[in-house]
């Protein structure tokens, strides 16, 4: 115990002594061995003579608890559904990037939050078991009830929240009715994406709420072509992850340098196979070849941060009512 405390103390001193450390708060997946964090760290450190320290966990609750005393110089991995709350903290400085050349299906004007990768929600299925997958959300609602799906809870999961907004974007005031039609097909609603996806690969459900890019992992890493995304005519909900720098940072130059790095080709080429999603700014010719095998939607649905924040509470109530029957 004593030596552990001592070690902890020493590492605090070590961190303080090294002025050239950029502290970046990120979601847990981001910094893990299997996320994009390690490659990004290596690439950034190669030409800055500094160190990136990823602090992983729930970024927003952490920032809220810490307030102005936060040690973060930058954050990465926030989703648009929490950016309104994050913005309200008043802790961020403008990213100062030109966002006109982004390769995203939506127009991005935000001066605080800088997108670095995006994706679209989609239901993934096994194309050896389902040959006539629904081609629209309507078709999914009308499918026989023995087509079983597994989804995530909008109260605990980002993708679950995106699904709720997806349904809202398609059905508007009819969303509750849509959920009622979907309800008998739902095997279960899990806390996070991982549990759902695990159940799907175990054969517990025919389709799982995931992303259009999910099959890329199976194709590239496992050489497995059996997983496909069902593409719906109504369009798919857009999800984007953003980064930002803190105005309270004691390393503003380094933080700015990190912001500059995010839209660089070096950073962006890490995203497809590091995060299994689309980079925010990367020419199609630089994408891994096999991403071309993915089924992608033509239409994109998206709520701005303010719209999403206003819709969230009533949509949650609808969702709860419809699925509680």
């Amino acid at each position: 115990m004593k030596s552990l405390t001592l070690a902890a103390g020493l590492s605090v001193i070590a961190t303080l002594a090294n002025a050239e450390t950029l502290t970046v708060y990120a979601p847990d997946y981001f910094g893990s061995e299997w996320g994009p964090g390690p490659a990004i760290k290596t690439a950034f450190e190669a030409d800055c003579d500094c160190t990136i320290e990823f602090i992983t966990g729930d970024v927003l609750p952490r920032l809220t608890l810490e307030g102005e005393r936060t040690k973060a110089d930058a954050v990465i991995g926030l989703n648009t559904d929490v950016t309104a709350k994050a913005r309200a903290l008043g802790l961020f400085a403008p990213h100062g990037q030109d966002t006109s050349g982004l390769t995203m299906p939506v127009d991005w004007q935000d001066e605080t939050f800088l997108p670095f990768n995006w994706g679209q929600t989609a239901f993934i299925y096994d194309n050896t078991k389902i040959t006539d997958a629904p081609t629209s959300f309507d078709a999914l609602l009308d499918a026989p009830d023995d087509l079983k799906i597994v989804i995530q809870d909008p109260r605990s999961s980002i993708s679950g929240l995106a699904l709720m907004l997806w349904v809202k974007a398609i059905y508007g005031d009819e969303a509750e009715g849509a959920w009622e039609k979907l309800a008998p097909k739902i095997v279960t609603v899990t806390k996070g994406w991982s549990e759902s996806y695990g159940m799907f690969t175990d054969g517990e459900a025919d389709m799982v709420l995931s992303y259009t890019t999910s099959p890329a992992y199976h194709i590239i890493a496992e050489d497995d072509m059996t997983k496909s995304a069902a593409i719906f005519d109504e369009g798919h909900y857009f999800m984007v992850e953003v980064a930002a720098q803190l105005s309270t940072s004691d390393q503003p130059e380094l933080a700015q340098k990190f912001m500059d790095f995010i839209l660089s080709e070096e950073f962006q080429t890490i995203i497809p196979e590091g995060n299994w999603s689309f980079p925010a700014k990367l020419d199609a010719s630089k994408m891994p070849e096999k991403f071309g095998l993915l089924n992608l939607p033509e239409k994109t649905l998206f709520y701005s941060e303010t719209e999403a924040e206003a819709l969230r509470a009533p949509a949650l109530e609808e969702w709860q009512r419809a699925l509680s029957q």
Partner: protein
Amino acid sequence: MLCLTLGTLAAVLMRAERGAGFGPGDWQALRFTLWQALWSAALSIACAIPVARALARRQFRGRGVLITLLGAPFILPTLVAVLGLVAVFGRNGPLNAALAGLGLPEVSIYGPWGVVLAHVFFNMPLAVRLLLQGWLAIPAERFRLAASLGFGPRQMIRHIEWPMLRATAPGAALVIFAICLTSFAVALALGGGPRATTVELAIYQAFRFDVDLGKAAQLASVQFALAGAAALLALRLSQQVTFGAGLDGTVARWDASGRGHRALDAFWLILAAGFLLLPLGAVVLRGLPGLTELPPVVWWSLWRSLWVALLSTALVLTLSLPLAVMATGKRGAWVEVLSTLAIAASPLVIGTGLYLMVFPFIWPGDVALIITALVNAALALPFALRSLLPQARSLAEDYGRLSASLQITGWPLWRWVILPRLRRPLGFAAGLTAALSMGDLGVIALFADPDRATLPLQMYRLMGAYRIEAASAAALLLLSASLALFWAFDMGGRANAGP
């Protein structure tokens, strides 16, 4: 312990600015939480009774191993257990395959009753242990007396077993009720939707999405209040419940030697073993293929988790021993009530409170593992305390005067009397703590450090990165390590323990 449970809650409350108040969703969550906790407790006890009785009155080869294995679900990490349950009872599992083969309709593990099923899976082992102790504590003379009076099984139940159950079952039910109050991941994975929303999920939502500490603290207070009320009620209803070691003997009895009774006991034992062990087997089977290809970082996190577990164990032992010895006095009942309260502590609130407490002084990431160990210790302490208390009480009763008459006090008292006499429950408590701590994801969300992940977190990361096979292997690793730790400590307490 108070500091860790109520103190952290106070820290969160102090920091909270607003509380959104209770919405209709929260009341529904409260109702469901109570509903599932009551059913889970009642069914766990109901199923445990015939199993405990069979274990109490039958001696057979492998009985000890079976008792240890039957205890495994209780110390299993939630996520691992849910995967195992789904593998066996899920839509794609052998149970439904068998039912389909017989032309019977599919049984769904999802929905409110699925949550109860999972809770019974987790907590029935605990109930079996508690009740088995009750059976073994019935003096042999009473069975001899019953035999001399020619009692049949029916009179046996009425005059001997029922009074014992009345004394022990309410307390056991309370413990399980308190455990189920804070259920979160199980309810979410198997609940099938928002019907199965628990208070702990509402806390998570308030904390993570709304970042509304006031509401999180309010909800946590409700949890405490429920557990406290239940604890006071059970204290009135029953004698204190004991956990712990000493399940080796059987009770010699003469009323149930008929073939029908043997068959009945065998039936219950096989049923319980199937229910509890098949999901474990599924975890093992799923994990084996990926085991050889596990990346080294997973092995490192196993190493780290072991340290966290050992640190929690050391903490729990240093805290619970003096508490247990203190509690032998007149205020023992209060320790009992407090320890039940602590069972219903929300890990999220403890974590957040600790974060608020340490953040001004230390960088939380640097003490992540220590904090994790601390919170795990706080969560395991009530169980350790309950396993130590009864033995500490009987130690004080039997040898308190002798020690006093010989002026054995201070360190010699610990060294020569308390530690050796409490060795068995200590081993059990240590094993329980180590195993629980090993599997707990606890407060990692706030304190995690990418380079210092524990095994459960690493498993979660593997799942999040589509590495399902590797994640299954990590789950198997976690299961084996938890069981091995429990077994090692429990055996350590028994070896050469003397009379």
